[in-house]
């Protein structure tokens, strides 16, 4: 419990920054929606000028024109997934490597507490932080939809479902981040890893949508919970959900095993 509290305290300013930045960005994006919906046809005409592949790269579908609220949400929500991914990856990568990087491992690991407990406490602290941001994000999304939807209709159940995907999404990046951090000898810079993960997998997803090759979708969590899919069909894709859960659980277990066995070197 003491580690949990301590870690949460260490994450305080990070929670504040991400927790404000992500929800506010989405809120501001959605604030433009009334302008777009005011002149749907003009906006659709504008979007037609862009090549289809480019729109597909950003997760747009022909069935969901950007001038519709679900269509607009597809692209804005998709954009917000990137910082959400980076934050989660950040926490995952830093969680078990921060002690070694900042040389505090000797302090923490020489205390009468097992590495299992350390890992669980740290994970829970990170997960709590992510959940706080997640709740703020969901709140901002719902509020913005209510404020800016105008007379557009939207299936609220689909929105709720879309918002729950963030939990899976965050867990995916946290667990992959943890696995990376205990697999490499030393993490010199957390942000370079997390940016690479967050953007890299987004590009994989974009390529999949653009060139239409199916197998790439299995590689990117952005494709597992594609906002367009969920807003059109209103369900999770079962196969992707299973893959995602499998990746989360196995990375977590593997990270645990590797962390348990890790040698902590002195300077």
């Amino acid at each position, binding site marked *: 419990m*003491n580690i949990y509290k301590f870690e949460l305290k260490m994450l305080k300013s990070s929670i504040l920054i991400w927790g404000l930045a992500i929800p506010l960005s989405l809120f501001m994006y959605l604030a433009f929606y009334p302008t777009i919906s005011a002149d749907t046809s003009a906006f659709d005409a504008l979007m037609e000028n862009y090549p289809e592949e480019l729109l597909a790269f950003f997760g747009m579908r022909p069935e969901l024109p950007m001038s519709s609220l679900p269509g607009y949400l597809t692209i804005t929500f998709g954009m917000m997934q990137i910082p959400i991914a980076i934050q989660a990856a950040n926490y995952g990568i830093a969680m078990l490597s921060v002690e070694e990087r900042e040389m505090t491992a000797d302090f923490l*690991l020489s205390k*009468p507490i097992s590495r299992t407990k350390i890992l669980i406490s740290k994970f829970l602290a990170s997960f709590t932080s992510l959940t706080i941001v997640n709740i703020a994000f969901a709140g901002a999304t719902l509020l913005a939809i209510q404020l800016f939807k105008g007379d557009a209709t939207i299936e609220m159940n689909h929105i709720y479902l879309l918002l729950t995907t963030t939990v899976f999404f965050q867990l995916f990046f946290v667990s992959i981040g943890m696995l990376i951090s205990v697999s490499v000898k030393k993490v010199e810079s957390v942000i370079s890893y997390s940016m690479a993960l967050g953007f890299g997998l987004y590009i994989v997803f974009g390529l999949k949508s653009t060139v239409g090759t199916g197998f790439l979708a299995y590689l990117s969590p952005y494709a597992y919970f594609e906002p367009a899919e969920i807003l059109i069909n209103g369900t999770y894709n079962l196969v992707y959900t299973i893959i995602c859960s499998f990746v989360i659980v196995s990375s977590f277990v593997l990270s645990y095993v590797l962390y348990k066995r890790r040698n902590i070197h002195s300077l």
Partner: protein
Amino acid sequence: MNAIEFNDLTKYYGKVRGCENINFQVKEGEIFGFIGPNGAGKSTTIRTMLSLIYPTSGSVTIFGKDAIKYGSEVRKDIGYLPSEIFYYDRMKVIDLLKYSASFYDHDCTDRIHELSEIMELDLNRKIQDLSYGNKKKVGIVQGLLHSPKLIVLDEPTSGLDPLMQQKFFNLIVEENKKGATVLFSSHILSEVQQLCNRVAIIKDGNIVSIQDVKAMKRDNYKKFTIRGEDLNHGKFQVEGVTELKVREDKVTFFFKGDVNQIVKIIAELKLTDIIVEEPTLEEIFMHYYE
């Protein structure tokens, strides 16, 4: 009962040797020195006690319990002061110490204040604002605040001024009198001699000798360097002198035995300078193991 037992402890980092077949026991209530040059394997050996590092083969038992298997239980009784001190920089000293104390079952508040007073540590400063020596003090208080039964010190004195070093030594002796066992690792022979009952000497990953410090003092070599005129007369070839190097203007040698003997010889000479010093650890090694 033995406080620490190393049983054939071996650690390899891939192909690189950390330590090999370490075998020795530290008795309860002892202040045990652990000495060797940098890179000899002192830290590796010590870190296995805290399961910071897992042995390749062999084992360590602390108060009869396997240090790896019962890691967290064993660590309740250990106070550890690492050689390099780094803490969560943005924290205040007192918050760090309280965090440290929160890992132990009993209340350590009084002890924190007592120790900080002895070590003249300002509890309200931020750790990042502290000098190296002051960080070291945080480390000392942090390592002792739960009144551990076993104190493990890995080169603890670097960065402490002589006055503080003395206070620190007094503190360790006091803890020892209260019953704590101490394992003191160092590469400085004189501090080990000052404090310890017995000492293990490690070289290239192997324990080469375990010595009684009193006996070692008796066996102590002194290194003489003498400058003057007409020194090449063979007078220094007496019993106890080794490594003798004689030139007209300079003589160096090691001596073990009654120093009065040498003083008598020197008294008859016309000297410009004389240096009598403790041999370095390397030189001791040369003498013990050649």
